[in-house]
Structure formats: C-alpha cells, structure tokens
C-alpha cells in the first residue's frame, strides 16, 4: 500500500512537469492553430535565462521567475509579429518556420553561452524532502506541482473569466466574424502567442534545477508536450491537464514495475492507439460546426 501511494505521488509529480511544459503549447496550438516546433527552445530559453540571471545578476530562481516570464513572452511576441503573422494562411509553412527558429535559437545560445552543460541551483529553502503520510518526496517536486496547478488555474481564468478570453474564444470560433464585431484579432493572436511562449519560458526555468540545461534540451520537452496536447485534445485545456497527469501516472507506474525504456515505448504505443480511434484526442471542446 505504501509503495502504491508513493508511486501515485511520483506520477503526480511527473504529470505536473508534463503539464508545465505542455501548457504553453496547448494554448498556442489550441487557439491560434500554430504548431510551434520552437516550443522546446522557448523552454530552453527560460532555463538559460534562469542560469544567466543567477550567474550574471546574482538573482536567484524564484524572484527571477517574473522576469523570465516577461522576457521569453516578449521574445514570443516579437516572433509572432515579425514572422508567424505572415504565415497564418499557410499552416505547413509555420511548421517549417518555427522549426527553423528553434534551430537558430539552439545555435545562438550555443554561441553565446557555450556548449557546456549548465545547471540552476535548487532554492535552498526547498532543498530537502518532506514526508507526506510516511512517503518521502522532494520538496521541490511539491513546489512544481503547486506552480503547475496555479498556472493552469490562471490560464483557465483568463480564458473563461476575462474579456480578453472572451475575445480570444470569439477569434478561435470565427476569425472573420469576430473581426466584424470590432475585435482586433491580430492583437489577440500576438498576445496569446506571447503568453504561451512566456509559459514555456517559466516551465524551463522551473524544471531546470532538476534537469540539465543545454542548448539541445528543448528537443525532448517538445516531444513530451506534443504527446500531452495530442492525447488531451487540441482545444481543451482541461484535456491537457487530465492527459498530463494520466501520462505521468502511467509512465511512473510502468517505470517502477519495469523500467523507463519500456515505459516510454508503452506510453507511445498507448497514445498512438488512442489517436487511431479518437483522432481528436480524449477531450473535445464543443464547437458549433
């Protein structure tokens, strides 16, 4: 019983990391419809920003988070303004363009920060582990869980409880009609993209104390993020959450019973089977057709 509970907590922890890295992608993919292959590199930028703030400005991780969110968000905003905006009518080209941005970012970071692996210090207050009902779990993993939950709530509220969210949903439903009603769709798009990019940056900064920081780190995350979003259903935030935690639990459980290599393979097979029979993902936002 004890080890089952321990494994459930581990699954929640893996799930919260998945949710964190997938949230930004889910927003961008679900609303603007852009398949952002540079998502992993936005995550990488966030991790490097955390490292740079600490190394050059002496700012530790937690107070730096706001700056990182704004910084990567601003970068995303520029990318949308300068480039993606011109490609909305050509979805295939956006894939190529965002992939290209990713490659450029990797090499730019390598040139500026060097190819060495970096690391971000764990906040000292969360360095130890805490005991929940007799199960030891790293304090920092609990922090990640809380942050992921908070970010989801904030995002959900923005989408469903603000005027901006209302306009965004209107643009998603019908771009032209929304424009006729006086909504500045272009502005909505760039802000949404910036928000998604900012979330990716935050995710990178937050996971960096547990993982390694390198120019190539984004490649792995973008795959994870896509798995979550595709499984959860493209336009559904709630779907993203449920699929992130489901994947976390399944991965953790199989990894514990077998090993991580098999877990990875089985999870991929499961996802492929699910989207074979439900191409739209597990959850579908109800849209009037």
């Amino acid at each position, binding site marked *: 019983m004890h080890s089952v509970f321990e494994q459930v907590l581990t699954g929640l922890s893996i799930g919260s*990391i998945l949710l964190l890295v997938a949230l930004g992608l889910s927003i961008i993919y679900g609303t603007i419809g852009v398949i952002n292959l540079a998502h992993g590199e936005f995550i990488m930028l966030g991790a490097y920003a955390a490292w740079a703030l600490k190394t050059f400005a002496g700012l530790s991780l937690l107070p730096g988070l706001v700056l990182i969110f704004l910084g990567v968000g601003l970068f995303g905003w520029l990318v949308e303004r300068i480039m993606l905006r011109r490609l909305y009518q050509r979805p295939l080209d956006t894939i190529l363009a965002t992939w290209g941005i990713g490659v450029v970012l990797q090499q730019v970071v*390598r040139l500026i920060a060097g190819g060495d692996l970096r*690391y971000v210090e764990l906040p000292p207050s969360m360095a130890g582990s805490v005991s929940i009902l007799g199960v030891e779990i*790293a*304090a920092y993993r609990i922090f990640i869980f809380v942050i992921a939950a908070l970010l989801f709530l904030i995002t959900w509220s923005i989408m469903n409880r603000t005027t901006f969210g209302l306009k965004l949903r209107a643009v998603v439903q019908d771009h032209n009609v929304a424009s006729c009603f006086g909504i500045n769709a272009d502005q909505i798009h760039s802000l949404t993209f910036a928000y998604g990019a900012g979330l990716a940056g935050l995710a990178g900064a937050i996971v960096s104390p547990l993982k390694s920081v390198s120019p*190539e780190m984004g490649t792995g995350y973008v795959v994870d993020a896509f798995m979550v979003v595709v499984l959860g259903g493209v336009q559904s935030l709630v779907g993203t959450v449920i699929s992130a935690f489901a994947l976390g639990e399944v991965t953790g459980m199989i990894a514990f019973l077998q090993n991580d290599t098999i877990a990875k393979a089985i999870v991929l097979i499961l996802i492929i089977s699910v989207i074979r029979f439900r191409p739209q993902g597990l959850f579908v936002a109800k849209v009037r057709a």
Partner: protein
Amino acid sequence: MKLTRRRFLQASAAGGAFLIGTPHIWSKNSDLAWAAGGDIKVGVLFSLTGTTAIIEESLNKATILAIEEINAAGGINGMKIVPVIEDPASDPATFAEKARKLVAGDKCVSVFGSYTSASRKAVLPVVEKQNNLYWYPTLYEGRECSKNVVYTGAVPNQQQDEFIPWLIKNFGKKFSMIGSNYIYPKEENNYCRKLLAKYGAEVVNEEYVPLGHSEFSSVINKFRQQQPNVIFSTVVGDSVVALHRQYKAAGLDPAKMPMASLTTSENEIAAMGGEAAAGHFTSAPYFEVYKSPENEKFVAAYKKRWGADKVTHFVSEACYFQTYMFKQAVEKIGKGDITPNTIREAVKGVEMIAPQGKVRLDRENLHTWLWPKIAQAKSNGQFEIIVQANDWLKPDPYAAYPTQVCTEKGLVEKKS
C-alpha cells in the same frame, strides 16, 4: 537535364569509383605524400556541435593543446604536425563520412577522434579499409581488437578490478545497477556481475534508461525501496546531471547509498554542480587533482590556453598523452617512411610519463597500461583521490570473455 533514377545511379557510381580509386593512385606514387613538405597531417575528429559536443569540445581542445606544444618545441624531427579539424556533429554516419575525407582526401597519417562507442564503430570500417590509424581516447566497453585503432582509454578491467572489491568492503554486498540503454553500460554491467559473483555480492536490480532521459523519480523510488548498499551507475551524458540532481533533491544520503560511477568526471560535475555530486565515487585512471609534475604542467597549460574555468578529466588527459605517444612513435621513423603502418609498428610498447603516471601501449592488443584510481567527489567540483593502485594495470579488452584473447595477429579463440 532531367535527373532520372538511372542517371543518378550512374553518376553516383562513377563518383564513388573516383573517390575510392584516388588514394590508391597516389599511394603507389611515393610514401612521401604522407609527410609532404615537412608537414605531418593528422585528423582531429571530435564533435563541436550536437548532443555530445558538450564533452567532445574538451577532447578537441586537449588534442589541439598537445599538438601546439609539440610544434612549439620544434615538432617531430623538425616536421610540424598539422591538424585537420572536422566537426562530425555527434552523428555516427557523419563520423564515417568525415573520417573517409580525412584519410582518403586529406591523406592524414592518423586520426584522433571519437567519444562514443557508436561513433568509433562507425569509423572502424573506414580506417580498416583504408588501413589508417585511429586514436581513441575514451574509456569504453572493450571487446574490440582492431589493428587500426590505438586505444588509450580504460577498459572494464582497469576501472572495475580494484573498484568493486573496495566498494563491497566499504559499503556492503547489495548492488543496484543503473545505466543508459546502449552497449557500453551493458558490457560494463556484464563484467561487474562476474566480479560481484566472484566476491559473493548480489545484484538487486539492473535497469537501463533511454539516452537523454531526465526523469528519475521512479528509479529513485526503487532505490528507496530496495535500499542497495551501492548504486553502480553507468548513466552517461546529460542524464547523469539529472540523476544526481534528483537524487540530491529526494534527500537520499551518499554516505549510506553512494553512487559508484565509471563515467562521472570533473566535466559532468561542473555541469551538475559540486553539491549534487559530493560524496559519490568514481573509478578512473586520472583525476584533475592528481599530484604529479606532469599533471600540474598539463592542468596549468590547459587552463592558460582555454580558460581558467575549464577542467581537465580522464578522457581529455588521454587525448593529451596519446598525441605525445604519436610523437614518440613518429620520432622513431625515418622521414620518408612515415605511413600509418610504420606508426602502428613504432607505437607498440611505447612508454611515456602521462599526467596520470607512466603509461605503456600494449604490444599485443594496442590498448594502454593505466593506473586505476578511486576518488570521491567534493562539493567544490573536484575529486579527492582515496585509493591509488600500487601498480599499473594491463588492459584486457576481453576480460569478461575468458575464452577470447586479443593478440598482435588479431582475436584468438582459446580452447578451454
């Protein structure tokens, strides 16, 4: 002109024939081509981009440093070493392609290169076919006996023969094995299991994570549950960083359950931070803190050339001394006789004082006699050497396969 399938095949066949034909036309001409105009061309083949660039960059730097030192001190019999640097981009197929270019195109007389076994295996057919010489500095899994490779890194017996009994004596008999999922960790664990059986120790778990894996929470749960005395780790690359950082965050104690690694060097520790590495053990022939006049010289020169924040480690040390081994071998050969073949003959049995101590290239299997050491990582990012072997250790690339032995003539099956 339309590019039909047939025309494409014709063109590539002709091109291929030309590429293969070229070196033979030239080598008949004269051996002087190998050291044309008083220059000795060597290839330097370490990735400067891609996933393993993180470590291979330092190998490139150590090799270049040695070449620059040799040239500054007058070269080899008055000839300069000219490095031809290629970037194989961490991709085995590109390794093979660039090796072919260095050997057949640039007429390099030797190539220094590779970090991963996958890239060495990719280059192997090229250097064997062209009968060139490949200098491989990395510790690796053994079980190879090529006449076209000079191996200057440790093989399993040189890292484990001292290490395993020492771990059993100091921590206990319950071992858990964790490695990255490819050939190197599997072969090391295979040898480790034999040693453990010999000393009556047990393996409670053996598992492999995908390369580049970074989520170790389930693995750490297993450590917690099984409580092994020693975690024998052959995890490589950025996974090492994630494993150590998550081990630390989970609040496990290295004093009770240390990780014993064959792959964690100063380079990996710099990447994970000293705090996360402190208390764990590594077995290797070289550590930056090792006290010897040669090492002090090497470390000072390396930092002066590449930056004070750079570290040396057991693979970059091998890069450095193997270049000097190359020099010693070529020195023995007359100017007109320099070919990969004569270098191979000349390097057999070469001895020199490397930063780690006196090393020798084994006559039979072209591997290197090295000095095993056991060290514990400190929070300042350096190691503290705890055990030093009393004697250098003969390399035995087939230690785990007692019926096979690597000789000068090639691999021989022993009748048991």
